[in-house]
């Protein structure tokens, strides 16, 4: 009986530990990189809705959004992509292991995003027609990485 109680409590303790570690398992670096993508999506949304005519064009808001995208492109990426934070190693990420085999290529694609964002920054205040194509170039930069390095949901 004692053995059973001991076994059960060990099992219980393990279950609690497992649950706790699962909940905390997403490393800060992963949360941080996902946060930066969310900031990008929000600001692309401000610009995209103006480009599509879903929101009224506002030069100042457009400029702020483009400036923010440029600022994000300056965040040093290697800090946010430590080894062992791919889909095979942890839950809560869609980053494919292949990303770490091709880090140079991934970083060069991140620079392409920076260039596209900088171009968007120079035209953001020029009116609705100007931002559409510039957002398209940013979208191309997003696709270039998501094509191979982000797993489907």
């Amino acid at each position, binding site marked *: 009986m004692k053995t059973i109680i001991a076994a059960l409590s060990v099992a219980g303790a393990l279950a609690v530990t497992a649950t706790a570690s699962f909940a905390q398992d997403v490393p800060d670096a992963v949360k941080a990189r996902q946060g930066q993508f969310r900031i990008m*999506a*929000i600001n*692309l*949304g401000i610009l*995209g809705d103006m480009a*599509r005519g879903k929101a009224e064009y506002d030069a100042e808001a457009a400029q702020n959004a483009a400036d923010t995208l440029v600022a994000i492109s300056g965040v040093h990426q290697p800090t946010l992509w430590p080894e062992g934070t791919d*889909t095979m190693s942890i839950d809560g990420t*869609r980053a494919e292991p292949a990303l770490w085999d091709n880090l140079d290529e991934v970083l060069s694609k991140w620079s392409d995003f920076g260039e596209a964002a900088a171009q968007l920054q120079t035209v953001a205040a020029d009116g609705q027609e100007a931002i559409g194509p510039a*957002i*398209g170039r940013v*979208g*191309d930069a*997003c*696709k*270039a990485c*998501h*094509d*191979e390095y*982000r*797993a*489907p*949901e």
Partner: protein
Amino acid sequence: MRLWLTLLPVAIAATGIAWWLTAPATVDASQIVALDGDATQGEAVFHASGCASCHHAENAENDTVLSGGQGFASGFGTFYAPNISPHPEAGIGDWSVADFAGAVRLGVSPDGAHLYPAFPYAAYGRMTDQDLVDLWAFMQTLPPDETVNRPHEVGFPFNIRAGLGVWKVLYADRGWVLDVPPELERGRYLVEALGHCGECHTPRNALGALDRSAWMQGAPNPSGSGRIPALTPNSLTWSVEDIAYYLETGFTPDYDSVGGHMAEVVENFSKLPAEDRQAVAAYIKALPAP
């Protein structure tokens, strides 16, 4: 002995039927050969059909070198896209337009072998004659590449290509999936024929054939984790404009960005006229709920 004699005609008939079922068909090429191909028009057919997405080399910067080599995992083994550049030995440079029509429409190679349906010839079988010759004309203008084809890694019994003859009779249905009013015909042509969207967005049965009764209802991702999403109205609530904008830029209505193989599809559709993206979106919105 008498029994054997009685059964002999049956056996002969059965062999004949088996041969008829599994023998590769040929196309009547007379209309096709009579048409003039226009390479400029063919470029749009090429993008709408997504040829480069599967036939460019792995990690290639240049999407127009159709050297093949990308692997496509499936429950039957791994298929490797062949070289379809105009190289005379490594590619398809020595094919005739009739050979090309046989491969694209019927899934039959010039030497009479069945091609595996990883190549979506059931969808391409709905391609018009003019689009087919225009596509062929455009493909002649692409750079030749000498990369040798990598053999498929497919186990028994699926490595016996004659079996594909039966598969085709059962499953390679070239009729339209949906009945649509005239204003949706262009969208249907782009989705059901050239775009071959159903190949990923529709579930398959145990023999790898599309389940047309669950058209566009989503499916497991054939080459890895996750699911290919359903496009039916119970699942996809985007507007026509949302879908068209996604096909142009890769941005979802929440400004998340397209990923996986769909990124290549968006790359192709972004090169088409805006009316074609609208047409695709209108067809998608007209899909019946399951």
